[in-house]
C-alpha cells in the first residue's frame, strides 16, 4: 500500500522579510535576550534539587509509631512488633504486586508464643524498575518510596537493600517531609517564574 504524503504549503516570506532577514533577526533577538538572563541550571554535585513528594526513589520501611492506618490495628495482634521497629506485617502483598517478584526476599518466622515476626526483608534494586506498585499494595502503609535518588554503587552487592537501611531511610524521610502537602512540583512560585503562569479558561 502506498503511503500518502500530504504536502503543506509553507507561508511565503514577504519581500520586506526576505531582504532585511527579519526572521534571522527575530531569532537572534531571542538568543541575545537569553544571554543576559540568569542561568536556570543546578550545579549538581554542589547543589541538589529536592524532588517532589510523589517522587519514586529508593524504598523505605515506616516504623510503628502510632500514625498507622486502622488496618494495622487489626493485624497488630498477630505480630510481635515493638515501637520503633518496621511495621511490616509480612503479608507478601508487595511481592504479589511486583512485576519482578524475584527481587523481594521476605522471610518471617513463628515465635514460640504463636506470634509472627519479620526476619528478613531484602530488595535487589538491580531488578527494580521503581514502578511504585509495591507501595500501593501495602495494606499498612509500610513500604514507601523516599526521595533519595543517588543509588549508584561500585559493587553489585551494595545494590541490595536490607531492612535496617530501609527503616533508617523512612525515618529520615518522614522527619523531613511527612507534613509536606502532596503536590508534583516543589515550589509552584518557582515554576511560574521560570516558565510562566498557566491559564484556565473562564467558564
Amino acid at each position, binding site marked *: 500500500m502506498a503511503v500518502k504524503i500530504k504536502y503543506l504549503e509553507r507561508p511565503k516570506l514577504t519581500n520586506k522579510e526576505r531582504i532585511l532577514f527579519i526572521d534571522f533577526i527575530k*531569532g537572534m533577538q*531571542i*538568543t541575545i535576550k*537569553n544571554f543576559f538572563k540568569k*542561568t*536556570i541550571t543546578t550545579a549538581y554535585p554542589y547543589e541538589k534539587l529536592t524532588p517532589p513528594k510523589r517522587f519514586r526513589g529508593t524504598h523505605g520501611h515506616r516504623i510503628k509509631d502510632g500514625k498507622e492506618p486502622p488496618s494495622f490495628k487489626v493485624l497488630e495482634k498477630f505480630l510481635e512488633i515493638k515501637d520503633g521497629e518496621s511495621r511490616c506485617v509480612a503479608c507478601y502483598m508487595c511481592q504479589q504486586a511486583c512485576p519482578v517478584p524475584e527481587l523481594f526476599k521476605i522471610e518471617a518466622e513463628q515465635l514460640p508464643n504463636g506470634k509472627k515476626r519479620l526476619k528478613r526483608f531484602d530488595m535487589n534494586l538491580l531488578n527494580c524498575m521503581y514502578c511504585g506498585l509495591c507501595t500501593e499494595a501495602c495494606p499498612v502503609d509500610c513500604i514507601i518510596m523516599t526521595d533519595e535518588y543517588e543509588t549508584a554503587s561500585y559493587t553489585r552487592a551494595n545494590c541490595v537493600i536490607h531492612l535496617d537501611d530501609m527503616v533508617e531511610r523512612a525515618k529520615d524521610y518522614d522527619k523531613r517531609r511527612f507534613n509536606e502537602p502532596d503536590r508534583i512540583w516543589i515550589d509552584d512560585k518557582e515554576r511560574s517564574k521560570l516558565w510562566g503562569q498557566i491559564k484556565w479558561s473562564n467558564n
Partner: protein
Amino acid sequence: MELLGVIVGISLKALIFIIGMFLGAAYLTWIERKFAGHIQQRPGPLHVGYHGLLQPIADALKVLTKEDLVPDGVDKFLFYLASLMAFVPAIMILAVVPFGEPFNIFGLEIKPYITDLNIALILALAFGSISIYGVIFAGWASNSKYPMIGGLRKAAVLIGYEVALGFAMVGPIMQAGSFSLKEIVEAQSSYWFIIPNILGFVVILFAILAETGRTPFDVQEAEAELVSGYNTEYTAMKFGLFPLAEWYIATFVLSAIAVILFFGGWQPFPLLGWLPIPGIVWFFIKVFALFMFFLWVHWTLPRYRVDQITELAWKVMLPLALANIFIVALWVIIVG
C-alpha cells in the same frame, strides 16, 4: 651570516604568531562555550579554575593523551595528511594579516605582522581555499560513507562561496587601489569602506559562515544526518585539529580580514579617535566583535539544506557581489 640572521628572525616571529594563535584559539573555545552556554541559559564551563578559565588547557591535555585510533581500511598516509592539510593553511593565512602599524618599544621597531606583501589578499584567499583539500581528503581517506558525503558537500559549498567571497572583496580593492592589506587600511583613514560596500559586507558575512562551516551552513558535519561528517573516523588530536582550524582559527583570521576590508583595520572608531588607545587594541576589539557575531549566528540559526545553500550561493550571493562591484565603481567615479 646576515641571511641566517634574517631567517632566524623571521622564524622566531612566525613562531610567536603561531603559538599566540594556538593559545588564542584555545581561549576562543572557552569563549564560545561560555557564550553558547549563556545563550541557552546554562553557565558553560565553571569548575576548572575561576569560571572554567583553565578548561581549555584541561581539554588540550585530554585530547592529546587520548588513544589515537586509526580504523582498518583507511588510507593511512592520506588519513594523517588530511588533518594537517586542513589545519596548516588556516594558520598560514596569518602570514599576510597585519595586526597594526609598526610601533617602537625601547627603541626597537616592532612590526605586528609577518610580511606586507602586495598580493596579500590573493594569498589569504588562496590559503583559505586550499584547506578544502583537508576536508575532501579526510572524507576520501576514511573509506566510509558519511565522511565521503560530508567531504563532497563541503566541496560543493566551498566552490560556490569562494567565488562570491572573491567578488565581494573586489569593492575595497577598487577603492584602495591595492591588494596589500596594509595599504587598504591606510586608505580608510577618512571613512570606512563599509559605506558603499554594504552589499559586499553582507556577502562576506555569509561567505565566512559557509567557509568555516558555522551553523546555518554546517552541512558537511550535519550531526543529525552524517554522524559528524568528514571527521567521523578521526580520534584524539587528529580530530581536534579540524574544529580548531575551521571554527576558531579560520573564523578569527577571516574576521580579521573582513575588519581590514570594511571596518578600517586599526583605525579608531569615528568620534573616538581622541582616546589614548593604540591601534592594535582597536583592531582586536573590532575583530572580536565580528567573531562574537559569528558565534551568535552559529548558536541561533538552524541548518540550511544542501540545495538551499548552493542555490543561495549562486543565485543570491554572486549577483549581490556583482551589484556591489557596480555600486562601488559608481562611487569611485562620483566621489573619487
